[in-house]
């Protein structure tokens, strides 16, 4: 088993690559701004379906995806905005998707829970917990079969480790020695349930290791640490080292869905966790490194403006032509039915 990153010294905060950290700050600010805007749009009635916010978890998406090339792939779960933006997807198309518009990333057919951007290797969010795991493994399998150097990252939550595909997928990845990095975003909750209460044994890392996939723990709210850990794991995967597992501890600062006030946890707990907000921590670090507050404010303001523009764009975008409902189903025999509404 490779040495665990936990024993390594913390990335040297004195000598950090300021431009890179600023990049993370920008990515995280964009994710936050996107989700805050989506949340508001939901309240304003512009988003019809469920939205799961990753507010507080942006460090994982940003830290991991910064180590991927555009051609690399990711799969995600229901809480996928952060992964998608961090992988380079277009914010305007994403917002339009949440609004169900023709210009949406999925032409309005998917919504938040099925957001995808294949152009940047984002193979899709998923409405079924754990379902992205075999899909990621299969994509990695195809890469290995084809001798294609691209790798796959698979994001899922701590709730997903109690579903069968977790075991099957990790076993498979190791049995075939596939180029895939599993990233478990351990935010302590599965919907309204404290994951710990229904999860036996020592947790995600032990499960992963029991399946032959080495696990690395990381503070998911420390984007610099996530970046460093992911850098090493991605390098291992690229070098043919087989599947790797990153166990990122984080916290879901908002409810399960945007509409969930999360009364099942004390307000004090959440308040305390806000102090650990990855964006705040990153900002503090940059400020400590001498970055001007004004510059940081501008990054944030730019992100907010970008999200606002995406909202404006989305609201102005056309609704899809209803005929679009019939496309991309299947090629074999998708003649239009005689009467719309009278199915065939």
């Amino acid at each position, binding site marked *: 088993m490779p040495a665990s990153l936990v024993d390594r010294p913390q990335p040297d905060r004195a000598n950090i690559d300021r431009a890179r950290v600023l990049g993370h700050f920008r990515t995280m600010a964009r994710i936050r701004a996107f989700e805050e805007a989506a949340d508001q749009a939901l309240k304003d009635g512009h988003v019809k379906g*469920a939205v799961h916010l990753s507010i507080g978890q942006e460090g994982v998406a940003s830290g991991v995806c910064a180590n991927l090339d555009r051609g690399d792939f990711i799969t995600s779960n229901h809480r996928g905005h952060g992964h998608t933006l961090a992988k380079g997807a277009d914010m305007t198309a994403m917002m339009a998707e949440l609004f169900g518009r023709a210009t949406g990333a999925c032409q309005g057919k998917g919504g938040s829970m099925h957001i995808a951007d294949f152009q940047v290797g984002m193979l899709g969010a998923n409405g079924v917990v754990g379902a992205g795991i075999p899909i990621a493994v299969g994509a990695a399998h195809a890469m290995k079969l084809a001798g294609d150097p691209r790798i796959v990252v698979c994001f899922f939550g701590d709730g997903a480790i109690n*579903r069968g595909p977790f075991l099957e997928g990790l076993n498979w990845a190791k049995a075939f020695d596939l180029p895939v990095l599993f990233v478990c975003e351990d935010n302590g909750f*599965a919907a309204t349930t404290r994951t710990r209460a229904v999860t036996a044994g020592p947790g995600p890392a032990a499960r992963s290791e029991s399946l032959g996939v080495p696990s690395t723990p990381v503070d998911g709210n420390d984007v610099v640490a996530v970046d460093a850990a992911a850098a090493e794991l991605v390098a291992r995967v690229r070098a043919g080292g087989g599947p790797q597992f990153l166990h990122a501890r984080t916290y879901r600062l908002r409810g399960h869905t945007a509409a969930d006030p999360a009364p099942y946890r004390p307000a004090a707990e959440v308040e305390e966790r806000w102090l650990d907000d990855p964006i705040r921590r990153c900002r503090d670090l940059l400020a400590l490194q001498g970055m001007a507050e004004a510059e940081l404010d501008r990054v944030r303001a730019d992100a907010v403006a970008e999200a606002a523009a995406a909202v404006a764009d989305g609201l102005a975008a056309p609704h899809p032509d209803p005929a679009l*409902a019939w496309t991309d189903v299947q090629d074999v025999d998708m003649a239009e039915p005689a009467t719309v509404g009278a199915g*065939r």
Partner: protein
Amino acid sequence: MTELTYLDASREALAGEMRRDPRVWALGEDLGRGGVFGQYRGLAEEFGPARIADTPISEATIMGAAVGAALVGSRPVVEMRFSDFALCAVDELVNQAAKARYMFGGQGRVPLVVRQPIGMWRSSAAQHSQSLEAWYAHIPGLVVVAPATPADNYGLLRSAIRCDDPVVYMEHKDLWPLTGEVPVAADGGLVPLGRGRLVRPGHDVTIVTWSRMVQVAEAAAAEPGAPSIEVIDLRTLWPWDRAMVLDSVRRTGRCLVVHEAVQAGGFGGEIAATVGEELFGVLKAPVRRLGAPRIPVAYAPVLEATSRITAGQVAAAAARMV
């Protein structure tokens, strides 16, 4: 009689059965905090966390464990959250629950109820909107129930819990807030499995339907200029009330089956085929079906609407038959 929502009716029904029979318990994700729609609100407080069991996200084992628990004498009520997630537990339901009694020559029974909320609901898209009642009606050993009203969601759930066969119990998500009179009583209000409900009489066309489409059919029947429509709510898909349907169509001479599920391969085919076979010569028009097109349910409201059957479409289809 009490005025209750479809949602609260189901909760009263479960609570009633749990009070009555200590072998009844419920299991599923987040039940301790009321379940994803609030159908279990307050039950953990009354019955404790052992009987309102919070489970891991393990649909296959939620269902499989219920099979084992049922085989040894308990009466589990399984919550699948969205019927779509029950697709993670099909072996357990179809290969195990439905067949155990038979394969073992009657040595064991599997008295479980699996609640599978179905249907389109607020832009839930392709993985949270399906109605697959046709699948389960096709599986020997399973009873399939799809209530359309608060009173039925009360009375049928109680009957389902008392049933010694495995019951697939499909509530419609869009019906949760629907209110109606419910005869809540310690041991009353039961609705028998397998019996349809005559929603309204009529003499031109019989509409056979279930679940959320009952309201739509009623609305269609009430449209100005609509023919005289008799609406039958099947309530139970397996066994379905052939006698009620055939009696009605014998009178009207016309039958239109309406369901929210995809029309192709939907349960409407079974009904249409049966009516066509039994009432050949009596029919004044071909049996028609109205179901969703064979496309996944899309997210955008304007696209999602393509999959949704409207009262206008139903009325028009009925009118065309006369």
